[in-house]
């Protein structure tokens, strides 16, 4: 019972954050709403008994990405004139399509997975298992290495793009 309540609570928080991010006129507040949404998601991970991911979520999204976005906001402060429309002119079409998509996909998901319940508990050492999977040869070692290369590339790319000539 409590988990349902908790789920609903966290879902509410996440969605509220998301909607806030999307509808907030002031960008800084939008960023804060986003952070709130990330926090909600982290809470969801805890509910899904994936504590490591909750921490990672906090660590990466709240810590790195959120900050980066706020940082970018600060860098491009000049353009944030408050007045004027903050939505472009075909937002209603997008809204419509988004709702349609949500309804369709939601309905399908409800049909498909409505009754699937969490069967067995998660054993404690899932984190160790994850570590092993990521580093084993036949597991996800290669994608893991590629991800690291990707990150280095992103690092160098970002620096070169933004470097003051």
């Amino acid at each position, binding site marked *: 019972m409590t988990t349902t309540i908790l789920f609903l609570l966290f879902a509410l928080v996440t969605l509220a954050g998301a909607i806030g991010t999307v509808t907030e006129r002031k960008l800084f*507040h939008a960023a804060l709403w986003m952070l709130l949404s990330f926090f909600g998601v982290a809470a969801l991970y805890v509910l899904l008994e994936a*504590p490591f991911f909750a*921490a990672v979520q906090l660590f990466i999204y709240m810590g790195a990405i959120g*900050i980066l976005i706020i940082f970018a906001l*600060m860098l491009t402060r000049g353009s944030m004139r408050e007045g004027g429309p903050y939505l472009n002119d075909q937002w209603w079409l997008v809204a419509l399509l988004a709702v349609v998509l949500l309804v369709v996909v939601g309905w399908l998901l409800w049909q498909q997975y409505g009754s699937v319940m969490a069967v067995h508990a998660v054993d404690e050492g899932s984190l160790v298992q994850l570590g092993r999977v990521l580093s084993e040869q036949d597991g996800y070692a290669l994608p893991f290495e590629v991800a690291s290369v990707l990150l280095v590339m992103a690092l160098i790319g970002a620096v070169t793009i933004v470097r003051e000539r």
Partner: protein
Amino acid sequence: MDFISDAIVNIGLWLERLLVSAGLAPQAAALVMTIVGTVVVAFFPLLIVVFLIWMYRKASARIGGRLGPNSSGTWAGPGGIVQPIADVIKMFTKEDIRPLGIDPVPYNLAPIIVVASAVMVWAVVPFGKGPRMIGADLGIGLFYIMAFSSASLVAFLMAGWSSNNKYSTVSAFRATAQLLGYEIPQLVAVLCVVVVAGSLRMSAIVDAQQDVILLIALPLPALIFLLASYAEIGSRPFELLECESELVAGYQTEYSGMRWGMFYVGEFMGAVAVSALFATVFLGGWRGPFVDSFPVLGTLWLVLKILFMLLVWTFFQMTLPRLRIDQMLAFNWKFLVPLSLVLLCVLAPLNHWLVRALPGSDYVWARTGILLAANVLVFLGTWAVVAIAERRRTVRPRQVEVSA
């Protein structure tokens, strides 16, 4: 006698039995107990902070050759013990000025988050032996702590941004650079510990230090962790966030009264958290003599270690000069990060081999010794590298032939 030996736990049990007997359903009782536990854990750092304020003033005075708070003027209790209370009252009663241009929501939210992130750390710190002496024995204990340390950055940004003045904005930028930068060596240092201790769980780490504290096995990672943590909370050597000479009060400039107090307390809470963390991870947490027989002593030991670390913090605060921003960044990116990575690369395989070669508890000391040796070697290596770099950078005078 056994009650006292494990006083806190027993008190807890007693209370619960009291509630159950008072007719609450066991779950409800458990719920109430968890709430009570949370409150207790939350207020524990506050208590330490109050004491810390006094101790900080006394110690820094002594270091500075001053008396510090004393009752020479009016009565301030023995050694000025009442000083913190006076401060608190001052904070509450000071006028709370809010400038017009500020952005209200983040402006108000920032101090709260700072304090919250500091407090959240304590949920994982083991106060004593046994499961009931720890808030939540999370599988990712250490990593959880790391996660929340980044939350403080958000708070600084909000504060810096919302106060709508140049100094706080600049301070926000500096905060981003510093905190994000120093997270990396802190995390890598913690990784070294995790590698040796074998688990992220705080209680497991404390158990690993049963025979020998990790500080002896991993002195270099401990030092890196300490420095990085001080940078995280913006204490003296890296006190660029609200350094008076340049940024008035950094992100705190527009705050006054109680909000500023929150920041002040937040800063101290940060220091306490770092010390607690260091104590738990490197100094063995509640481990100490006689703790097996008298579990209560564990908490005492923990408090003493934390106080000791706070002394070290105060020492750092009072003696070290403030770094320039480029020195700070260079120190991090050019020295700490590479050093910590090297350390990890050396210690991880070494430890992996050691656990294979010298298994079991009777070889603990041997393993510790070898790890210590490795640390010393790495230290000497870095020393040599730094020396070479130093020599190359000094400009030797060039002989220039001056034609007659």
